[in-house]
């Protein structure tokens, strides 16, 4: 059962008969089904390659800024400075380091 770590998201490629299912962990910790019954007849290694290509398409790396992010203010004394709201699910805030690309400051 190949496990993929892509963009800080944990995916599993699980066999289901001669096909493959792709599951992943939601930020809440729950498991979600990204795909079921895919890649009939492919070997585990080939299915893992195809699965990685698919998750890269469905979950592209990027950020989307949609307005003031009031839940993550930068505090200077009493002052709260709010930046843009970055809604990509994998955006890494300064206080939560990336697993796949650790901060090297």
């Amino acid at each position, binding site marked *: 059962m190949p496990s993929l770590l892509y963009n800080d998201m944990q995916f599993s490629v699980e066999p289901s008969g001669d096909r493959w299912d792709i599951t992943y962990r939601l930020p809440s910790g729950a498991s979600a089904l990204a795909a079921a*019954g895919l890649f009939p007849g492919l070997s585990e290694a080939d299915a893992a390659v195809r699965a990685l290509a698919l998750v890269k*398409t469905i979950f592209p790396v990027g950020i989307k800024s949609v307005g003031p992010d009031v839940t993550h203010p930068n505090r200077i004394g009493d002052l709260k400075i709010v930046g843009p709201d970055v809604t990509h699910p994998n955006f890494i805030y300064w206080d939560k380091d990336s697993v796949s690309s650790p901060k090297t400051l």
Partner: protein
Amino acid sequence: MEIKGSVALVTGGGNGIGEAVVKHLAKAGAKVAVVDMVQKNIDRVVKDIKAMGGEAVGIQANVTSEADTARYIKGTIEAFGQLNIAVSCAGIIRDGTMLSLDKETGKVSKKLGLDKWQAVIDTNLTGTFLTMRDAAEAMVNGGWQGLLVPISSVNKVGQVGQINYSSAKVADALMPKIIVGEFLMRGIRNIRCVAIAPGYTATPMLTGMNQDALKAILEDVHLGRLVAPEEIASLISYCVENEALNATTIEITGGLCYPKGIAK
């Protein structure tokens, strides 16, 4: 076009009519992409399709976003290698009359907010346009046979309390004529477009409503009951298979009439 072996993408596939359509196509042998905003509904539908022995990919996305649209079209093609059927079921309602009057003074007390107008136009019209446009682009560039299915509504005729919804749905109903006309102009022969305009359909939204209101609605339906989502799904499957159906909008209402018997 044969359903078996084809690839279908259904927006709003996590609930109601979209769920019925995506399951019906999967059962008939299509590989399917379930696109919706609600992840837990995507999960449920993908699991059900897996239990039927089908192939499905679930993509959480907002149909009003151009970037999301590109992502779910590409994701479907990455998973299954082609795209043949695109059904645009994602839709919302935000009902209200354009003006409300104060009973005492007779003056306007409330106007329909731009938020309610825009949300419905964005989802039901712009969302449908984006899915149809990008699905058609993929089908043309891939050289695949295809069917585009915008979902309109019988309320395209103009329903009071739904200036936003009816405006979007009448525009959705026009799409097949325009799209197919443009395809003919451009020499694109491999893609058809048929819109479906359902009447009152037994989705959770309607079955869960006030039962007296539901009874009043059914008084105007010749069939005497709501249309089942599966009946709409089977009509869409028929549209896939019958290639003479093209550039038109088909109503499926059970015979919805205006009071006193005029068919709506």
